[in-house]
C-alpha cells in the first residue's frame, strides 16, 4: 500500500464509531479509530506497529465507504512545489524549508520500513524492522548518514529476509534520499 495516502473518515465512518449498534469487526474498528485525516498510511503504521492487518483493514474500510482518500499534506508535495522560488523566500525560510524536508524524508524512511517489514507477521522480521527503525531514528538528518544506514537496511533485508523486498526497499528509499540530496 502507498504510504503517502491520507485517509479521512466519511460520515458513515463517523457514524460507525458513535453508533453502538453498528458492530464493526475489531480489526476494522481499531483502524477506523486511528484514521484522523492528518496522518498518512506510513504514519499510521508507525503509530500502530502491532496492527498486522492495517493495510487490509484500510482497504476494506475504503471499499465499504467508511474512509476516503484525502488531499496529500503539503510536506509530501514534490520539491518544486515546496521549496522557494527565486526571490520569493529569504535565506532563513529556505533553510527552514530544507530542514523540514530532511525531517520529512527521515520520517518517511522509517514509515517505509514499518510498512514493508514491520507489518510482517514473522516476529523475527518485526524485530529486525524495529532495530532498523531505532538505528535510523538515532541518526542526524543528513543525506550521508541516512544513505549509509539505508544501504545497511537493504543488505540485511537481502541477506536474511527477502531479495525482492530488499530491491523494493532499495528503490523506494533511494527515491526519497535523492530528494534529500537535491
Amino acid at each position, binding site marked *: 500500500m502507498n504510504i503517502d495516502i491520507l485517509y479521512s473518515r466519511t460520515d458513515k465512518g463517523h457514524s460507525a464509531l458513535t453508533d453502538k449498534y453498528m458492530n464493526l469487526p475489531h480489526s476494522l474498528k481499531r483502524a477506523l479509530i486511528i484514521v484522523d485525516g492528518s496522518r498518512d498510511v506510513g504514519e499510521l503504521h508507525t503509530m500502530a506497529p502491532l496492527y498486522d492487518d492495517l493495510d487490509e483493514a484500510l482497504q476494506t474500510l475504503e471499499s465499504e465507504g467508511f474512509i476516503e482518500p484525502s488531499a496529500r499534506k503539503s510536506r509530501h508535495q514534490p520539491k518544486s512545489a515546496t521549496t522557494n522560488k527565486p526571490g520569493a523566500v529569504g535565506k532563513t525560510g529556505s533553510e527552514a524549508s530544507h530542514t523540514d524536508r530532511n525531517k520529512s524524508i527521515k520520517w518517511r524512511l522509517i514509515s517505509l520500513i514499518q510498512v514493508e517489514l514491520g507489518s510482517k507477521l*514473522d516476529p523475527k522480521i518485526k524485530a529486525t524492522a524495529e532495530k532498523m527503525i531505532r538505528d535510523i531514528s538515532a541518526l542526524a538528518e543528513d543525506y550521508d548518514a541516512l544513505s549509509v544506514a539505508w544501504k545497511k537496511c537493504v543488505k540485511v533485508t537481502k*541477506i*536474511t*529476509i527477502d531479495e525482492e523486498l*530488499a530491491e523494493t526497499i532499495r528503490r523506494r528509499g533511494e527515491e526519497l534520499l535523492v530528494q534529500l540530496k537535491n
Partner: protein
Amino acid sequence: MNIDVFTFITACAILIMFYCLWLTLKLKSSIPGGLVGKKWGMLTALVSLFTLGYLATPFFNQLPEDMLRLIVALIFLFGAIYVVITVKLIHTVITELME
C-alpha cells in the same frame, strides 16, 4: 566395556554432529529468507543426513563391504556438496557486504 579408539572417535563425531544440527536448526528459525535463508534449508537437510549417517557408524562392521564402500562414497559426495554450498554462501554474503 571395552572402549577402543574407533568407538571414542565415533562417539565424539556423533556428538559434534548433533551440536551442528542443533545450531543449524536454531539459526534456521532466525533467518526467514533472503540469500542465506534460501540455502539454509539445503544445508539443514545435509546436516540431518550426515547426523543419520554418523549414527549408523557403529553398525558399519555388520554391513557387506560393497554396501560400506557405497555409503562412504555417498558421504564423500554429500560432504563435497555441503562444502560447495557453504563456500558459495560465504562468497555471496561477503560480496554483498563489500558492495
